């Protein structure tokens, strides 16, 4: 394993308790033991935008999600579960089209060779009808689950079209965390960044600071999110926040251009900057290793 790691382009993120591997090598540390407090890993996919059409942005919009599913299925070790962090579908004003896209998305990802797939909404899925269609297909807008010593909290900051969590959900979060031990291993899954990443591009959650204040009371919290269609890492106090790439199209770095717009498809490097990630949870150490994977090998 060490030799394999040495071949990787390894980026250590000082103080984050996270190592990020930028590669596609699939041999991983950790066994397959089901004991609590031992390492396990899961896959995060984000911003699949099923239903999107834009030949200059992604001429393979009908095939990229299917390729991503195949890439996950081809991993050498099966993840414990897969989570989609929002914008499963491209939005539509037409509620029938919205539901058709959700049904098609669900059919495609049903081909994932894993026991458990978790979903959460993005604004494209839930903002126009406050999550009505989403709940018909994928269940609750926010929820928790526990897996091998880690408490996962899926937060909804999109079904309110203003991009807020809201007082009711905030109280729910406080109540949930009160039941947790102080040093509980907590992973928050959400769509939009909880901190003000770049409000000029609406890369924020309107009441995100209130959420972070609640989370700061626990020492072992990591946030995984999507929305910004690129890898990004940030600290708020001791909480680390990690944005995932999109499966469908990439966006520029925050503030790097006068206007936020999808990055054009490069025929010389198809699927560039698209991908998914493995997250290895080292439960005893309360640390996470993120390994980025391309949609197509060799990218």
């Amino acid at each position: 394993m060490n030799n394999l790691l040495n071949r990787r382009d390894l980026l250590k993120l000082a103080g984050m308790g996270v190592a990020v591997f930028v590669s596609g090598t699939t041999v991983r540390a950790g066994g397959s033991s089901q004991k609590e407090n031992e390492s396990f890993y899961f896959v995060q996919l984000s911003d699949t935008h099923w239903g999107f059409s834009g030949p200059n942005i992604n001429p393979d919009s009908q095939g990229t999600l299917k390729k991503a599913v195949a890439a996950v299925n081809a991993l050498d070790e099966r993840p414990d579960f897969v989570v989609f962090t929002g914008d499963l579908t491209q939005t539509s004003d037409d509620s029938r089209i919205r539901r058709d896209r959700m049904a098609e998305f669900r059919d495609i990802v049903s081909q994932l060779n894993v026991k458990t797939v978790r979903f959460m909404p993005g604004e494209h899925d839930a903002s126009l009808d406050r999550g009505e269609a989403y709940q018909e297909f994928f269940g609750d807008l926010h929820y928790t689950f526990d897996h091998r010593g880690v408490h996962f909290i899926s937060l909804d900051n999109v079904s309110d079209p203003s991009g807020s969590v809201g007082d009711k959900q905030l109280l729910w979060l406080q109540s949930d965390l009160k039941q947790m031990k102080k040093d509980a291993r907590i992973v928050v899954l959400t769509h939009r960044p909880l901190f003000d990443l770049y409000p000029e591009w609406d890369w924020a959650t309107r009441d995100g600071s209130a959420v972070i204040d609640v989370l700061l009371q626990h020492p072992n919290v990591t946030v995984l999110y999507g929305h910004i269609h690129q890898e990004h890492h940030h600290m708020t106090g001791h909480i680390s926040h990690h944005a995932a790439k999109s499966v469908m199209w990439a966006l520029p770095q925050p503030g790097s251009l006068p206007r936020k717009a999808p990055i054009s498809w490069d025929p010389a490097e198809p699927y560039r900057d698209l991908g998914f990630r493995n997250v290895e949870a080292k439960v005893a150490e309360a640390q996470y290793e993120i390994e980025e994977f391309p949609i197509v090998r060799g990218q």
Partner: protein
Amino acid sequence: MNMKRLITYTMMVGALTGISMVGRSTAREMRTDEQVVRITASTFQFQPSTITVKKGVPVTLELVSEDRHHGFKLADFHLRAEVKPGVVERIRFVPDKAGKFTFICDVFCGDGHEDMTGTLLVLEDSIRP
């Protein structure tokens, strides 16, 4: 018209037009050179999409929606407002820096929401817009 009748009349007009104000401006505080700009929001654009004002001169933005619920966010000046049909939302501020600033719709409004942006151009007071 006595004073009581005048107040009643003013309240009725306010209720009928649905006018609301963000900030503390009143007619008495308005300067003669105050810049008043009406911005109409609709899917998926602001009209006008570029507004030009002078630094140091108060600006009142009158925001209205032609169709659905939108938002207006001008992050560089820490300004935002809900923009809903049937309501004129007013934001009054004094631009204290010159430059080019982007405003956006920050209430997700559909497929095209991401394109719903505009530009505030603030010129030095000595330059005529």
